[in-house]
Structure formats: C-alpha cells, structure tokens
C-alpha cells in the first residue's frame, strides 16, 4: 500500500507567495456576476429565470443537462446572453446585477443531522446543490456517488494540489479541516467505504499538523496521508495508485478498482449542502503569478469576472506574458479577463516573462529517454511522436496513445523542445479516425 | 564432452565467429529477412533448424561413411548433395504432414536450401573434427547468432533512416557500411576462448 507512482516531474512549486495567505473575500463586491450555463462536463443547463427576475443567494436559476446552477449573489437578472467562458470561446450565461445584500434564498433545503443522512438523501442533496467535480473534472458528483455506492472500499479526498502556483485547496484544508473531516466521514459511511484517506502533499507541513491535531481529537475512520511532492500526484489514477497501490485498468475509472476520489473542495461543498443546506455558490481561487502585485487566495462567488479577482489582488504590476486559469501545466490560456469564475476554476495565474522558459526552436530528438521516464501513464512519447511524424498509423496502436491523460510531463521535460503533448493528441485522433482498434 | 568445451564452442559460434558478421556466411537469404524483424526471426529459426539437422546428418555421414572408409576426398560433394537434399526432403515432409507449418516455413526453407551457413557449418564441423555434441551446439549457436545478427540488422533498417547519406551511398552501399560497422563491433571477440 506504500507507494507512489512511476514518472512525473518536479517543477518549481512557486507556492511561497500564497501559501500563508488565508482565504479572504473580495475587497470589492463585483458589480455583476456572470453565471455560465455550462459548468459541468456533461452538458449545459437551461435557464429557469428570465431577465428582470429577482434572485437570492443559493436560488436555482438553471437546471437540466448540466445539473442545477444557482445564483451566487442576490440581485436582478439583467440578461441571458453569450459571454466569454474560461474554458474557451463563449457560452450562454446568466448575468445578475449584484445588489450587495447577499440575501439567502428562503426556500432552500434544511440543514440535516448526520443520522438523518442516507445514501439517497445524500445523492439528492448533492444534485440539488449543483455540485460537480471542483478539482478540474467538473463531472456531476451525484452521478459519481450513485455509481460508487456499495462498490468502493476506499474514499480518497484529494487535497494533493500538485500544480505549481495553486494553493486554494491547501488553504481550504487548513482553515476548514473540521468540516472537511466531518464530510469525509459521512461520505465514507454513506457509500460504504471501509476507510477514508485525505491525501495531501508533503510540503504542506502546517496543514498536516493542524489536520492531524484535529484527527486526534475526533476519532473516526479518516486517515491522513502525506505524499512527497511530485506532479501529477493529484491526477486521479496516480492518487489511487499512491494510496492503494492499485492501477486503474486502461480505459477505466477509479471505480473499477473500488476507489472513489473526490476533490477536497467538492467534499467541503457536499458537507455544506448537507449540514448547512447551502448550494454551491462560492469557491476558493488563488490569484498569483509574477505579474500580479499582491498574490493571495480568495473566497469568491461563482460567476465573478476574473478581472475583479485581479483587482482584489492589487492588479497587475507588469504586463503579463501569459494569463491562465488553472495551473501552468494543464491550465488553459485566458484571453479575455471578463470571463467568470466557474465551478472548477481553482486559480488565476499571470505569468511574467521570466517565469516561462526561453522560447527556442524545436530541435531533433536525441533519444534521451526523459519523456519515457517522466510519463506517469507508462507511455513512450518519443516513439509516438516519431510514428505520427512519419504517418505510420500501423505502429501507433502498439504504443496505445489513448492512455494519455494529457498531464504535459513529456513536453515539460523534453530538452529538444518537441511538442510531445500535441503530437500524442494527434496520435489519438489519428487512431480514432483511422478506425483502428485501440 | 566437457561442459567448458561445449560452452567455448557455443560462445565462439555466437560471438567471435558469428556466421553472418564474422564468417560472412549466410547472407544469401531472402531480402525480406533483412528488412523486417519478424521476417528476420522467421528466417532465423528456419536457418537454425536446417543448420542443426544438417550438422547432425553430415556428422553422421562423415563419421559413419566417409572417415571410416577413407573417402574423405568426397566430402565436399557429399555435403553439397546432402544439405539441399535434406532441405528438399524436409520441405516435402512438412508439406505433406504439417501443412500449416509448411504454409509459414516453405518460402524461408526454399531460400535456405542453398544458404552457405548451412553448408558452411557442416564443413567447419568436419574440418575441425568436432564430436557430435560439439557439432550440434556449434550449429545451434551459430544459427542463434545468425538470427540475432539478422534481427538486429532488420530492426536497425526499420528504425534508422538510410537516406541521409550522400547520394552515391544510398541504397546498397550504406547497408554494407552498416553491416561493416556491426562486424567491426565484433572484432574485439576474435580469439575468444574459455
């Protein structure tokens, strides 16, 4: 059960700037929030309100294919229109003008006691609260819980934030560890898991001490595990392998090896939905980067335009070379700061020039083998890249590029600056289009 | 038939007297065997089978007939008839009794019937007066060594592109240079003895 996973890289973490800054609210309430209808990986929802309607915090304003969406501030709905989306392009969004009152919704569900909570109640509440995977996956959590019920023996709460720069989950674990522990215990009981493990990276020492102290105070089946820092520890398959030593079969999910992995922010949101009756309306976001004047961690309403977050962080002190949401390894570049915070946005990073490596032209592969040693999914990116470039589809299926989880370790480490991630993606599409058997 | 002696013969056949790279015998197989590692493997094991059987029969012929009756001067003729005859007989037998195997091996066997490695190994065995055990080990390891050389060469051919050399070297010359470089690597094994 020891363990760790093969591969991975060790980028500089750059977390010193924000690790000690507690979660704070925005300095200035946003004038309006823009809540996209697509915040879930399975689709987008239909709006339940029309422009002109008055909404309160936690009131459902959309439902449907993408699950429930709630208003995160109180105010008046001014429009339902296309708005820039952090996932790229634009998306239909509900714009609410903030009246600054933060009136909670009166018809919300009641807080529950632990003994009242069974699996059905849990799943129903989670669905009504519109909770999706907040660690990046954005998969509806109620679906996940329903599939996992009775079939898992380990619940893993993923607080291993392996991406550099991001510290939102770390602060959340540190400051709200009581409630997270309670939530983890409850979840473990409801889905029938024999044990629950909170996994955090070894460099978060103060978090570990605090949580351990709380663990000692309250007995329970929740264990805390610290793992040595390495990217991509926080990826689902890698964390399952680290905690239980089991490997998820190709094309499968952690459920296939009897594990349920939930992000720590998701667990926090679940326990808030159960014990406080609150919907998913706020989340923790780190604003950081060399170009930001005062990097900090913020607790913001969902739908806040990212521009407001930047202003709360003191604005830009130099022109950034790149603005991203998410971490620098897997995050998406952001071109429009009007895009809002969605349910799985955990960071806004403005990178200055000196933080990115020098642009250099691609040179020839010298077969150093670093990409093979770094790939956590046991792929051979150099061979895949060769086969793609030579157009040799026949050999490609032997290298199974469809296992790639696009963590970016190969491109990170290649000294010849070959765009390996892109080539593996191309290989995948080549295989799928070619109709060849994966 | 001492183990050390057998090991010495085996190592010599594998490395210091590799049939393809050092003795330069056995190159007369089909061209496909030099291009594709899987074909190389198939040709290799057919060659090994023929070499072992050839060694067995030629040793028996040598021992029972030629040396006993003092007809050593007919040796070359006998071997030249025996080995292709053996291969023809083997092909016939496999074609009749094991048709599936014949489907796979026939082409390879056809190209091996006049392969100098098979004849060469039989001749070397009788020249050096090996005993039966040594003869079989020599033929087996010689075949294995030739197979490894073929597979290495074919996998090199598949992966390394040979089009970057000057125009006059493209095609066969660069292949010979490659084979020469591989043979140079084995120079250090000359005179290996246990």
């Amino acid at each position, binding site marked *: 059960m020891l363990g760790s996973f093969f591969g991975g890289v060790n*980028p500089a973490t750059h977390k010193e700037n924000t690790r000690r800054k507690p979660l704070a609210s925005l300095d200035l309430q946003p004038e309006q929030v823009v809540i996209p209808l697509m915040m879930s990986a399975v689709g987008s929802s239909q709006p339940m309100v029309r422009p002109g309607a008055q909404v309160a915090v936690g009131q459902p304003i959309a439902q449907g294919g993408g699950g429930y969406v709630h208003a995160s501030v109180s105010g008046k709905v001014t429009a339902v229109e296309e708005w820039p989306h952090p996932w790229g392009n634009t998306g239909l969004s509900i714009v609410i003008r903030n009246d600054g009152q933060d009136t909670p919704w009166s018809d919300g569900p009641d807080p529950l006691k632990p003994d009242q909570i069974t699996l059905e109640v849990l799943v129903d509440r989670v669905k009504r609260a519109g909770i999706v995977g907040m660690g990046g996956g954005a998969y509806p959590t109620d679906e996940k819980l329903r599939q996992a019920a009775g079939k898992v023996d380990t619940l893993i709460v993923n607080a291993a934030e392996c991406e550099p720069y991001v510290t939102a989950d770390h602060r959340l674990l540190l400051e709200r560890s009581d409630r997270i522990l309670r939530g983890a215990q409850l979840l473990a009981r409801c889905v029938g898991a024999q044990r629950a493990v909170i996994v955090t990276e070894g460099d978060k020492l103060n978090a570990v001490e605090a949580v351990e102290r709380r663990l000692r105070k309250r007995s329970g089946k929740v264990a805390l595990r610290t793992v040595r820092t390495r990217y991509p520890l926080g990826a689902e398959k890698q964390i399952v392998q680290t905690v239980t030593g089991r490997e*998820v079969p190709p094309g499968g999910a952690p459920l296939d090896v009897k594990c349920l992995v939930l992000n720590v922010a998701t667990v926090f949101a679940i326990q808030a939905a159960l014990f406080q009756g609150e919907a998913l309306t706020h989340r923790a976001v780190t604003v950081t980067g060399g170009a930001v004047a005062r990097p900090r961690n913020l607790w913001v309403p969902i739908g806040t335009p990212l521009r407001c977050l930047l202003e709360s962080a003191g604005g830009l002190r130099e022109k950034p070379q*790149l603005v991203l949401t998410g971490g*620098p390894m*897997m*995050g998406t*570049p952001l071109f429009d700061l009007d895009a809002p915070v969605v349910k799985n946005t955990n960071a806004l990073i403005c990178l200055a020039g000196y933080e990115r*490596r020098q*642009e250099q032209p691609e040179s020839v592969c*010298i*077969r*150093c*083998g*670093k990409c*093979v040693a770094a790939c*956590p*999914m*046991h792929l*051979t990116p*150099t061979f895949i890249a060769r086969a793609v470039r030579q157009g040799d589809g026949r050999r490609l299926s032997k290298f199974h590029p469809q296992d790639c989880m*696009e963590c*970016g370790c190969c491109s*990170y*480490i290649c*000294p*010849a*600056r070959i765009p390996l991630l892109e080539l593996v993606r191309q290989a995948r599409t080549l295989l799928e289009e070619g109709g060849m058997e994966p | 038939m001492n183990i050390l002696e057998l090991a010495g013969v085996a190592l010599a056949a594998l490395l*210091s007297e590799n049939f393809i790279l050092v003795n330069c015998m056995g190159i007369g197989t089909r061209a496909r065997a030099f291009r594709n*590692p899987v074909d190389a493997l198939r040709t290799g094991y057919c060659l090994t089978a023929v070499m072992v059987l050839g060694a067995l029969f030629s040793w028996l012929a040598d021992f029972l007939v030629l040396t006993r009756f003092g007809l050593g001067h*007919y040796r070359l*003729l006998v071997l030249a*008839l025996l080995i292709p005859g053996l291969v023809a007989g083997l092909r016939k037998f496999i074609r*009749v*009794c*094991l048709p*599936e*195997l014949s489907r796979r091996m026939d082409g390879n066997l056809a190209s091996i019937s006049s392969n100098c490695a098979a004849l060469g190994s039989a001749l070397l065995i009788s020249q050096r007066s090996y005993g039966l055990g040594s003869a079989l080990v020599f033929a087996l390891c010689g075949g294995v060594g030739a197979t490894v050389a073929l597979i*290495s060469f074919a*996998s*090199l051919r598949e*992966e*390394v*592109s040979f089009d*970057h050399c*000057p125009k006059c070297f493209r095609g066969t010359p*660069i292949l010979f*240079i*490659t084979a020469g*470089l*591989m043979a*140079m*690597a*084995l*120079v*250090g*094994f*000359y*005179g*290996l*003895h246990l």
Partner: protein
Amino acid sequence: MNSTRSFRLPPQVGQPSNTASMMADVMVALLPALAMAVFFFGFRVLVLTALSVGSSILFEYGYRRLTGQSDTVRDLSACVTGMLLAMSLPATAAYWVPILGSAFAIVVVKQFYGGLGKNFMNPALGGRMLLATFPMLMTTWTQPLDRVPLWGVDAVSAATPMSYLHAGTLPPQSLGQLMLGQQGGCMGEVSSFMLLLGGCYLILRRVISPRIPLAYLGTVALIALLFPGEGTDPFLWMAAQLLGGGLLLGAFFLATDPTTSPVTPRGQILFGVCCGLLTMLLRYHSSYPEGVGWAILTMNCCVWLLDRAGMPRRFGAGHFSVLRYWIDRIRRSLAKIKFIKPQIHFSLRRDGKMPGEAHLDQIRTQAKTLASLGGVILATVLVIFGVHRFTDLDTARAETQAQQKLLSQVMPQAAFSSEIPALTAGALSIQAGYSEDTELVGYCVEVQAQGFGGVITMEVGVDLDGKVTGVAVTDHKETVGTRAMQPQFLARYVGMSGTIRPTGGNSVDAVSGATATSNAITAGVNRALAIVANLDMEGEVEYVDGEDLEEP
C-alpha cells in the same frame, strides 16, 4: 513557430535545459579527468584534445556545408565526440591519430545516418575502435608522471593495470593510486576519482539517468566478486576491476550516450547488464586486455531490439501482461499446426494392373531432371575418383616429405619417426624420433596453445634429457604476431628445459610487438616439456593381432 501558437500548447512551463546545455554539461564533467591527465602526462594531452575537438568540429561543419544541410555545430555534440575520442587515446598517440578517428566518427558513423539523434553507433567509440584495429597504435602506454614530450615520442611500452588483471594478478598499484590516477592507460581513464566526480555531476544535473551506469558497474562488480583471479582477495579484485581500465569512462560517458542507448527504462537496465556481462567476458577470456569499448559497441547494435523488449508495461495492465499475451499468441499459433498422417500408396499395382504408359509419361519429366543431375554427380564422382587415384601416391609422398621436413626442423638428430600410441591429455600426437641406428633420440609432441587470434598448433621436439631440440609452427590464425614465429625466434627455445618463464632465469623474452603470440608459443613448449617428462612408458599396448609389443 510563431509566438501565439506557443501560448496555446500546454504545458506553459518547461524545464530550462536544452540539448546544447546537456552537451556542455558533459564537457564540464570531463574537465576534471582532463586536468588530471594533463598533470600526469604533460601538455601533449591538451594538444591532442584540441586537435580532436577541432577536427571534429571541422568535419561536421564541412560535411554539413558540402551536403547543403543545416549547420549543427551549435549543438556542441561534435565537441563532445572530439573530447571523448581524445580521452580514450593513449598520450603517446601521434598527432594524425585523433584526426583520422574523428573523421571516421563524425562523417561515417554519425553524419552518414543523418546526424545527431539518428546514428546507431556511438561515434567516439566507433572512431576509437577503428583506431584499435590498427596493430600498434593503441598498445603503447606510458607510465604516469612521465611527461610525454610534444614532439619525438618514443614508444616505451609499460604495463597497465589491465594487463596485470588480464594475466590474473592484482596490479601493483594500491587502490588509492588507482583512484587518483597513478597508473598507465588512456588519457581519460587514468583518474577514476575525477571520472566518478564527473559522473556524479552528470547524474545530479539530470543529464544522464543513473540506470545504465549502476547496472553496468553493478554487473561488473558482481562478476568480479564471484570470479576473482586465483589467490586474490575477491574485494580487492573487484575494486581493481572497477577502477582499472576504461570502465568508468565507458559506464558514465560512453554507454550513456543518449542516441545510442535505449530509451525505455527497462531497456536501459538490460543494456547496462549486458554490457557488463560482455565486458567481463572479454576481460577474462579474450586476447585484448580491455573489453569495455567492444562490449558497448556490440550492445549499440542491439539497442533497437532492447527498446522493443523493454517497452514499459501498459498502465493498468497486469505485470506480466505482455508475456502472457505473447505466450498466448504463440500457443494459439502452434495449436493450428496439426500432424496429418501421410497416406503412402504403393502405386505399383493399381486396380490390379501394372502401371501403364500414362504413368511412364508422368515420370518422364521427373526422370529428365533426375537424369541430368545424376549425370553431373556421376561425372563429378569419376573426376574426384580419378584425381584422387592419380594423386594418391603423390599426396602420400608429399605428406611423408612434409613430415620429414618437419622432423628435420624439430629434431635434427633424428632420421625417422613413428607415432607412438600413448594417450596423453594435451598432445595431439606424439612421435618418437629415432636416429639412423634405430636408437631412440627423443619425442616430437604436437601441442596446441591459445594465441591472439585463435589456436596455434606447433610441433616441439624434446630429447631424452628433457631439452628442447626444435620448435615448428604448423598451423595458426595469428594476424598480428607472426613475427614471433620466424625461425630465428623459434631457435631461441633450443636447449631449454624445465618450465620456461617469461622473465627471470630460464626464460625466453617475448618478441616485442607479438607478446601474446610469443607467450602462446612458450606455453606450448612448456606443455610439450611437461608431457614428455610425464610420459608413461610402462603401460602395455594391446594390438589387434594379439602380439604384445613392449615399449623400448
């Protein structure tokens, strides 16, 4: 790639080193060893290194320019090749040696296949091994602290630790001296400590992965521990093997060359282990005292095979999934092969009748080919038979004449000889030599000894006092040491007896330039002397016709 495109490709950060910086790191790692070599061998080392690096760069630039390809000198790989080539030369090498070596290395081994990243053989090692095939080039070593002058080098051959280890004894230097570099050898391989420093630097800077060096050195250490030289302490032997010769240079700098070593982790470990096995095989059993270069070269040829074999197992598939898949596939493939019992007809009597003309037509075509083949065989047989008959007598006469000539060379005082049927291990045949009056003069023993390129068969005549009367070499495979087989050198053995040693009393000096061959001939003569000394003359011999003849 324009800048907007670069924004879109994740990841947005990357580790800062590139190919040129990796090559620069390798050169930095070689500097301590180079400095130590300058300290021990003088400034000639610097000149040789400069020549080697300079000519490598020149050839690479020149070749790329002449063939109209992009200039690749900037990635510093040619510099590294030049430096490594220089480090593996002895300090007494002539000035044209590194130039030739780097020409071959850069142009043929590297550029003909497409340049950096596309060659299959280590260029520095390829150049080095080409030079090793020149007979006298690589075997003159100077003692350390014996500063070699810039001009006018005279080849004084000194023993290196590897030559001691090859002979089975520990070298005279202490471990500390071996570490620091007070030993003979190539310029770069003398200072083990500096090489270790360089290797650690490379590993810490993540330029090379520790797998290959550890696998290589580990295998060598294990084999050295298990098979030490006679009467030596296993640990000292292992330490001497690890520190002596070019092993550290090879393990850290030559075997780990990225282009010519496997890419997959398992393949790398296999590579290291096989290199270690081959190195020890060569060190123990071959004619060259040093086997590192040859071992690495041989494994270079198999790298693509190793990569296939060492493909990492798929994430999520079981540990032996590949093996199970292959076994399954082979089993299914073999299951399809079924044995069909052949139906053998005797078609002589079909339907109760004799075969008719139709059958004869069928066999006519076959008969044609068979007849011609039979005719050729018959003709050949007749020719061989005729020639053999004709020359039979002549062959026998020639054989006797040759034998007589050999006898006169080997035992001049004998008039004729006859073979005695004494069974002795180690002798191919023993002939007793008789003088004119049929008095026993001595014995001619045919023995074999292992020379440099193969087995040397020789005939040694020993008289009844146990003294050598003559030595003649009847068969050999030497290419290099033929000087030692000239008559004037063989004549030195006449009159010696007992056990002939290489040095000291009762010795015959090895011929310079043909040490291995001379040693082989000495070994053969010793063997013959021992055989004759122990010849068992008391036994009885049973003859077929029942007559018992006692030995004279």
